[in-house]
């Protein structure tokens, strides 16, 4: 590894790590309001979020399962952002993908193995198309993708609510949900009784796919060039518009896959409250993860662990409201956005160091 690469990796890690530290420091204030020791609270939080004792009772595995949809919506955002399009449509694509998988999960009869694969592919196609549309509108009509994807998110949410409230409603007496999928459509779990299973592996494979697509394939190259330097891409003859629309389709496929995994491996149906903002959290994970698949996986697992630790560790064991998990995450995001706060200081230190090195080596 060259010095140049080491510096790049260090620079990319510096902001998130400092943001996490700052977030934890400031989060100590609300903990103190509850008259608890922040250090004890953090210990409890991390133990419940990330500990691994055995495959039978590992908090880490629950965290992995909770991180799975976040990884996928995060990857979806990475692919869109790397095309230079600020798509916010992961929420809607995830819902429509989940709805598609949930419906095919009970409405058709197929042998095991074939059934989930079929449902997943259909969900990915639906998610992809639902993202392709704003991409096409952007390229052909100049419609701002931020606005169109927000609108499409609402349409998807209301449409899914309509489906599970009326035509696909399973049980009129309780809250709205669709019928349970067939056993043949279920994604298997690795540990009986948990939901940590094939979905997580699919998410990791998707991360590898996104890396290969963006940084090793000609299509990904087109997409990144069009995103990073649009005038350069046009000048070089890259079909930027086609690359953008394709990027949006791939982005939607990934969010759709996230929805399918939730429907086939976690909830086994579509229900009111299916998403709880997974699309939005994915966008945050993408930004915090430096718009890179590896960063997304790390951040998604971290988010899921903090949430899980806050709920189980703090709420149940220490009687600190679980919203603290949300506060910690929000503060970390804030500190990433406000990286100038500590970046300036860091830069001054490195500049001074470099200057000293420059003088001792006799050069300028």
């Amino acid at each position: 590894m060259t010095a140049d690469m080491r510096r790049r990796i260090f620079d990319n890690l510096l902001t998130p790590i400092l943001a996490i530290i700052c977030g934890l420091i400031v989060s100590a204030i609300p903990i103190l309001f509850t008259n608890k020791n922040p250090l004890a609270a953090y210990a409890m939080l991390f133990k419940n979020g990330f500990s691994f004792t055995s495959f039978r009772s590992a908090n880490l595995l629950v965290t992995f399962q909770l991180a799975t949809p976040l990884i996928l919506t995060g990857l979806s955002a990475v692919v869109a952002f790397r095309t230079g399009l600020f798509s916010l449509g992961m929420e809607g694509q995830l819902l429509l993908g989940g709805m598609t998988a949930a419906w095919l999960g009970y409405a058709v009869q197929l042998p095991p193995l074939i059934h989930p694969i079929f449902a997943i592919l259909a969900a990915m196609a639906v998610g992809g198309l639902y993202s392709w549309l704003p991409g096409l509108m952007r390229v052909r009509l100049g419609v701002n993708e931020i606005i169109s994807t927000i609108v499409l998110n609402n349409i998807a949410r209301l449409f899914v609510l309509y489906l599970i409230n009326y035509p696909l409603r399973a049980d009129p007496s309780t809250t709205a949900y669709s019928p349970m999928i067939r056993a043949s459509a279920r994604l298997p779990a690795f540990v009986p009784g948990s939901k940590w299973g094939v979905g997580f592996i699919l998410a990791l494979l998707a991360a590898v796919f996104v890396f290969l697509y963006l940084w090793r394939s000609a299509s990904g190259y087109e997409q990144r060039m069009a995103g990073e330097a649009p005038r350069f891409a046009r000048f070089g003859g890259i079909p930027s518009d086609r690359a953008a629309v394709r990027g949006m389709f791939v982005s939607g496929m990934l969010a759709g896959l996230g929805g399918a995994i939730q429907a086939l491996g976690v909830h086994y149906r579509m229900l009111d409250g299916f998403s709880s903002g997974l699309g939005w959290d994915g966008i945050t994970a993408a930004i915090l993860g430096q718009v890179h698949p590896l960063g997304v996986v790390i951040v998604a697992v971290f988010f899921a662990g903090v949430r899980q630790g806050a709920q189980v560790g703090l709420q149940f064991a220490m009687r600190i409201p679980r919203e603290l998990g949300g506060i910690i995450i929000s503060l970390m995001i804030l500190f990433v956005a406000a990286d100038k706060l500590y970046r300036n200081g860091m830069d001054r230190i490195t500049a001074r160091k470099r200057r000293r090195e420059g003088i001792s080596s006799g050069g300028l």
Partner: protein
Amino acid sequence: MADDDVEFSAREGEVHALVGENGAGKTTLMNILYGLVRPDRGTISVDGRQVQISHPNDAIHLGIGIVHQHFQLVPSFSVAENIMLGREPGALGLLRTAAEREQVGRLAEEFGLAVDPGARIRDLPVGMQQRVEILKALERRARILILDEPTSVLTPQEARELFKVVRGLAASGRTVIFITHKLLEVLEVADRVSVMRKGRMVDTVAVRETSVEALARMMVGREVLLSIDRSPREPGQLVLETENLSVAGPGGIPAVLRVSLAVREREILGVAGVNGNGQAELVEAIAGLRPVDVGRIRFLGAEVSRLSVRQRRLQGMAHIPEDRMRVGLNTSTTLDENLIVSRYRIPQFNRLGFLRRGEIRRFSESTIARFSIAAARPGGGISTLSGGNLQKVVLGRELAGKPRLIIANQPTRGLDVGSIEAVHKTLLAERDRGAAILLVSVELDEILALSDRVVVLFRGRVNGELSSADATEEKLGILMAGGSL
């Protein structure tokens, strides 16, 4: 550090030229004198008194005026309104237009700078706008006038007018600091000249005791070949031909009007003209970046005006764009990825939709070696490369496929003398190999040094064509200003 331990002094009543390559520190020095940049240490004195200049207002009070390379005028205002901006005569917030114009008229007469006070800036030619800038400084009682690259936007005739004005100002006891990188101008207009290199002052000498060669040596730090050996070649078959080409510029305003030109193999066609006379639009239309309104573009005998950029490039067009930082390169990615932008689909670099990184790396290595791109590593970033090395990256990519046509738009803009030399040699070698070259430049020296034929663009039209034997600075200047021979 931009400037280090620079000693500079100008006398009353002298024209003092300040020369140096791009990045030598001329502009930083002037920005310090005008209060735009604070020096880390050192002192400034005016009239023998040490002064503090921490804001342009301080500079104006001390009688220092500056005319920037890019004019700071309000296009929709009249000459008088621009000159009196912020110092209008009259009371109670009412403007007294007549008094204002009278005052400006007197000022113009006093300095012999004929200009109509009532004319709108946007209707004036660039040379006139520059006069307005000078008058603006004089109205504010400037005794030290700094002109930053004042001839870069002028035709040779306009430049000569300016030199007269400058001499006149010096004769009236004012000091003119004349920043330039054109050495012939220095000999024509200045009394003394200071040469900067890499943030340091090399020397200050009297113009009478120096020569272009000596100045060039001081500027670059080594011997430079000022003229390149260009032996004539017999042009081959027709490569590029435009027929009655009309192209709209930004906002749909016609920028290129019925332009017909032709370039052959082993020929460099120079396109001269003052910046903004349709060159950018012409180049973009030929390269496929801007739609053609009317007319045809024929490349190797076939009509190409509806083809995409990629199709044109595949047929053998290469393009060296004017703006290498944003158009010619993607400075946020690696050298390797910059080198393949027009060729990532060819089998050499692409297998089954995946990039062949090993091949690309090898290509990168050979390009670095062939063009001796200093400080570049295969796989490394390019954001820290100098302008000259960045241009070599562009050349390395564009010339790799042995193109039939090379469109070179301002290929040496902002480069140092050494890099200019390298670019010129490369272009001539490409011509000798058999390429047709369309060379667009606002630097007449460059046009004259390289072109086999020259056409002049004026307001989007071809205003005359000269063979290299007939082309002189004088004649081109007349054509560039819209005149006829």
